[in-house]
């Protein structure tokens, strides 16, 4: 199937990019095609998964260059996803995913959807005085990676960002926590360990910097990411809490890049997606779709002198099929 564009129906470039990322993912569409179809027209209009399915059908069978996601956009506006409003792609991704999950209908599909996207981590908090340790399992949809370290130095690669993200942090001074055993506030070591990675892994590069609350600016510096990513090689033994089987499966290849151009106040999103069937890269700019190469995708690494150019914001990695 050739990639089909989505018309911009009112500052919908962010939504369009994310929809493409969802709909080009055959694992997601495999779930979407099995949803319960609402009975009534009113329910249909309000059901996001159903509207997505309709859109998918239209894209695949219309043989058009692009289709209008108008109905879906209207449907979403009921869930506080407004048109003619600038959205943050990471935020919108979470909203969309939760709405889809909520309206999926069948519990087994909900579980499949969760499996497809959910990352499991274990948070550790250890008192540095009495070495009492508390663990907590939690799950997340994206890995929100900072692109600067604690000293505001630019991290050099995606791998560095990952390592930094899973790097233990000492909580001292006013960050100290109350230790039940010690009965007072003590310094703690906080760390995060990776337990499980889903089939579709979403990485969020935190390129918007809230240095002082009044002024948000974008970090457009160069940050390369690989096409193939082996998490077990990137993270140390201490940063993982997984068995060998799990870790052996942590082989990923890049599937999509949601890129942002412009500034925080006024910008544009486009998506670079590698078709899972044809294994070719496409660039989706609303209704405009063109085939590109990995070299083009690399241009979203960021650039020190081009602040308005496209920079990768969300990265979707797909787990490699084990032979």
């Amino acid at each position, binding site marked *: 199937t050739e990639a089909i564009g989505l018309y911009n129906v009112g500052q919908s470039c962010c939504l369009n990019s994310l929809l493409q990322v969802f709909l080009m993912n055959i694992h997601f569409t495999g779930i979407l095609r099995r949803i319960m179809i609402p009975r009534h027209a009113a329910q249909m209009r309000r059901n996001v998964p159903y509207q997505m399915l309709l859109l998918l059908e239209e894209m695949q069978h219309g043989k*058009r260059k692009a289709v209008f996601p108008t109905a879906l956009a209207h449907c979403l506006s009921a869930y506080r996803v407004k048109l003619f409003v600038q959205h943050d792609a990471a935020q919108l991704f979470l909203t969309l995913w939760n709405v889809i999950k909520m309206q999926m209908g069948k519990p087994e599909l909900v579980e499949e959807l969760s499996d497809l996207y959910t990352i499991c981590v274990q948070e550790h908090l250890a008192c540095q005085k009495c070495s009492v340790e508390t663990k907590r399992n939690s799950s997340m949809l994206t890995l929100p990676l900072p692109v600067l370290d604690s000293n505001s130095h630019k991290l050099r690669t995606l791998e560095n960002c990952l390592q930094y993200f899973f790097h233990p942090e000492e909580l001292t001074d006013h960050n100290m926590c109350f230790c039940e055993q010690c009965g007072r506030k003590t310094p703690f070591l906080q760390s995060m360990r990776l337990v499980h990675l889903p089939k579709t892994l979403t990485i969020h590069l935190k390129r918007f910097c809230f240095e002082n609350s009044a002024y948000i600016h974008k970090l457009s510096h160069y940050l390369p990411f690989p096409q193939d990513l082996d998490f077990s090689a990137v993270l140390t033994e201490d940063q993982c809490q997984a068995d060998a089987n799990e870790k052996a499966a942590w082989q990923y290849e890049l599937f999509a890049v949601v890129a942002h151009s412009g500034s925080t106040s006024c910008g544009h999103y486009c998506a670079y997606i590698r078709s899972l069937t044809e294994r070719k890269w496409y660039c989706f700019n609303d*209704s405009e779709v063109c085939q590109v190469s990995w070299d083009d995708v690399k241009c979203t690494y960021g650039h020190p002198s081009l602040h308005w150019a496209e920079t990768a914001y969300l990265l979707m990695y797909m787990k490699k099929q084990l032979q």
Partner: protein
Amino acid sequence: MAQWQEVQSLANAHLEQVHQLYAGAALPMAVRQCLAAWIEDQNWRQAAEPLSSHARMLFHSLLALLGERLGSPGLGDEDFMLKHNLRKARRDLQAEFEECPERFANLVANLLQEERRILRLGQAGGQGGAAPAPSPAPESGREQQIQRRLAEFHAALQEVERAFRHLEDLQDAFDFCFKVHYVPGEDKTNDPQYARQLQALQAKLQTLDRQRREVLAQMQQLLGRSERLQEFLQQELGDWRERQQRACMGAPADTRLRPLETWFTELGQGLFQLLQLLRALGELWQKVTYERDPLKAETPLLEQRLKEQLTYLLRRAFVVEQQPSMPNPFKRPLVLRTASKFSARARLLVRLHDRNHHMEAKIHIDRDPPKIKGFRKFNILTSSSKTLLAGDSPQEGLVCDFQYLTLKEQKDSRSGKGSKGAGEGPLVVTEELHIITFTLAYAYCGLELELETSTLPFVIISNTNQLSSAWASILWFNMLSSDPSNPKEQQFFSAPPAAPWPRLAEVLSWQFESVAERGLAQEHLLMLAEKLFGSKPSPESTVSWPKFSKDGAAGFSFWAWLDGILGLLQEHLKPLWKDGLILGFVSRKQEKKLLKGKWTGTFLIRFSESVLGGVTCTWVEHPESGPPAFRAVVPYTAAELASLALPDIIRDYQLLVEENIPENPLRFLYPNTPRDEAFGPYYSQRQEETLTEQKRYLNRRLIRVSSRQANESWQTEEELVVATENLETLQLQPGGPGTQQVTSGNVGTLQPLSPGTGQVMVTSLGTLQPGGSGTLQVTSSSLGPLQPGGSGTLQVTSGSLGPVQPGGSGTLQGDAHVLEPPQPLQVGPGVPEMLLPEIGDLVLQLVPEGQGTLQVGPGDMGMMQGLPGGLGTLQHMGPGDQGTQRVGPGVVEQQLVLQLVPEGQGTLQVGPGGLGTLQVLPGRLGTLQLVAGDTGVLQPVPGAVEPLLVPEELPPELRDLDLLPGSPDMQELLQSLVNGPESGSRTLETLEPAELMPNIPEAMDGGLDPRLAGSAALLAPHDPFLPQSEDAAPAAVSSLFTTDFPPLHIDTNDFQ
């Protein structure tokens, strides 16, 4: 080729797909075929947009065209079926799509797209089936990719422009309808016609809004495309910068800017076109806007993004095409000298400018000088601004070419070099880096920018002798600077990093490549590394800046040494180095290893390690016994090579050894190329054939000669060869050993005051009057009287004449056919004289007090006439020799000794009152003729079997063969000649093989020179040229270590 034609020429498998495509399609293939060209010319994709009037127009055009075709006479009766099909198709199409022409447009667009897909598959398959496409060279591959991207960019740009014009049409239509139908303020809600009109207006606005979004999406796409294209171009430009930097260091690199200029200009053109389009979009929304107008929201973003791109493109496109350089023989840029002219050129790769607007470029030196104590400040003396010239032809591009610039130091009394203060110590002049910045006020299409670009840092010197170390700085900087364009790098030498050896090796190799078109081989680099590190280098080995450019045990740094060699190459040895005849960098150890197994006379040329800019030859000699000896001549420097080129030196090089047989020890260039074969092409032209033409002048030729000094065992001493012209008297400077040469056609008097060599070449006349010891070589048909005050050697080659009138001791060496007509050589009083073999018919007259030895070579005849008071020895060398020794009448004191070697024949005639000794070696025949009153001794050497013929008329008391006469003089002479300590016994040992040699050609092939090897022991102990007995021992290798040699030629480090 038109698409439909291409489709028809597809392979069957793919044609089948086309048939399937059209089998289910509403558009019959007959129609596609009939209107192929027209269908392909239309923009169906655009027409397929919802609510587009374009689709309806296209649909009706198609029906009309079909109608025309049906009515045309072109389709005759035979096409009845076709006509029928077309007519049916027209009817069907009309029925199906009349209501929804957009659907039809979409259908056709999809069909065309599918056709293209099948075509691609078919064509790719066709290629793949034939042969896998050879992967193109990476360079050309990148170029092709840029070309392809540029083409795609321009195609997309045209697409946007089309879309934009369509938008303009839609807006005009809407605007017109709006102004006509919309009447605000009036309540016409009840007017159904007005409501309909409003509805239509609303629909038109929807269309307009969609088209606006469409154009914006295309623009976004296009900007993404140009960003990516820009990235590729910048990468190419970065590569170019690196290449330029490497080229500055002497590396062979392609520094053409033409392709980059073309690409930058094309992209720039496209971006400026896009800027115009964006501005036009801005005008559109200023005419018609509405709530949530996408143009209003997004054009500012697009313009920002575009301007940023353009700015970046232009800033980067301003490059220093030619780094500052002043003319110098090495073509080394980035070293400037005050008050010397230099030039620099900058170029704007985006060749777009407004002809009516003159742009001015300026240059500044050290606009932002580093805060280093004592950093010198300079002024550019010549004009520092220039109008950017475009040139009339578009080929020339936008350049600002600053030629004839000069620099002058600002003298500031307060910040002199000597001023003390805190902070870093002042850098030496050659480590002070300066920068020239070009600025250009660029203005085009309403975009105004201040562009600037900086040169690579350069060094400013005030004296030419700083050039070498300045260049070292430039190399170091460009090799190691992490960010050469960062102005902070001007302080590079405050803390210069060390160079990794592999990187340094590469850069050093470039130096040789740029000077003499041949880089350094692995073996060279290994030698250099071992010199630097004392051992084999590891990939991690590094060289520090001081070690490279400052420290040096030999009194000069590694770089100074290397640059001296580069200078020598540049001036004198380019072709030899280029063609690989100079082995160059060879350690002593390696040199021995290479030469050890080679024939005697195998030599290699290497650079001296102890002399700045010196080159030397080392050859191997295999003595009969003991280890091979390696000999090297004192290095030649530019001063010597200026008078005589190295190939000519090698051709004519002569070694005067103790035996006084001059010869060229350089026979084979390592590994085994005969000398003349290797160096023949480089010899300078000989002028022998001009002998008859140039009656007025005799030919001359310079050669180099070494003589081996007695007290220096094997070490050869280089001597200066000087050309003389007509009867010139040359005087050698006292103290320096030298060679004077009289070349053909000249008459000269040589008066070496110190040990020297005089050479009289073909048809020249030379007189040697050495104050010290000297050698006079007389070659063919030349005449050379030898009048040594001290000791001297007269070498006479064929056809030459050499009377010797020595005041001191002298040697006369002669080749065959010398002295025609035979002319006596006179040996002066009190002077021992020696005549070497191969003299031919030679008569040696010994004048009173004179002492002479006459050695007669094979086939020669020699006569020694002893005048009263003279003392002489006649030595026979080989078979067939005949020697007569006559002692003049009344010479009572005369003592004559005739030595006969095997197969020699000799007569000893002792005149009245003379005294003679005949020594006969085994197998000899000797006659002792005694005139009355003479005393003669015939002394058979032990082992001689031949009977001695003793004339009957000899007085009986003189026939005693066992006892020598009681004369003490006689005793002494015999003692020294025959029984002398060491030399006496060796006379026999070494003579035997020596005589055998001439009959055994293999021995010659083996590289052994029989005369050299054998004659060493023939030397009379009196000869001042001869080593004293302790020095006569064969050269021991240990003597290589002699350190009392003034021009140290051997680095003792080599022997570790």
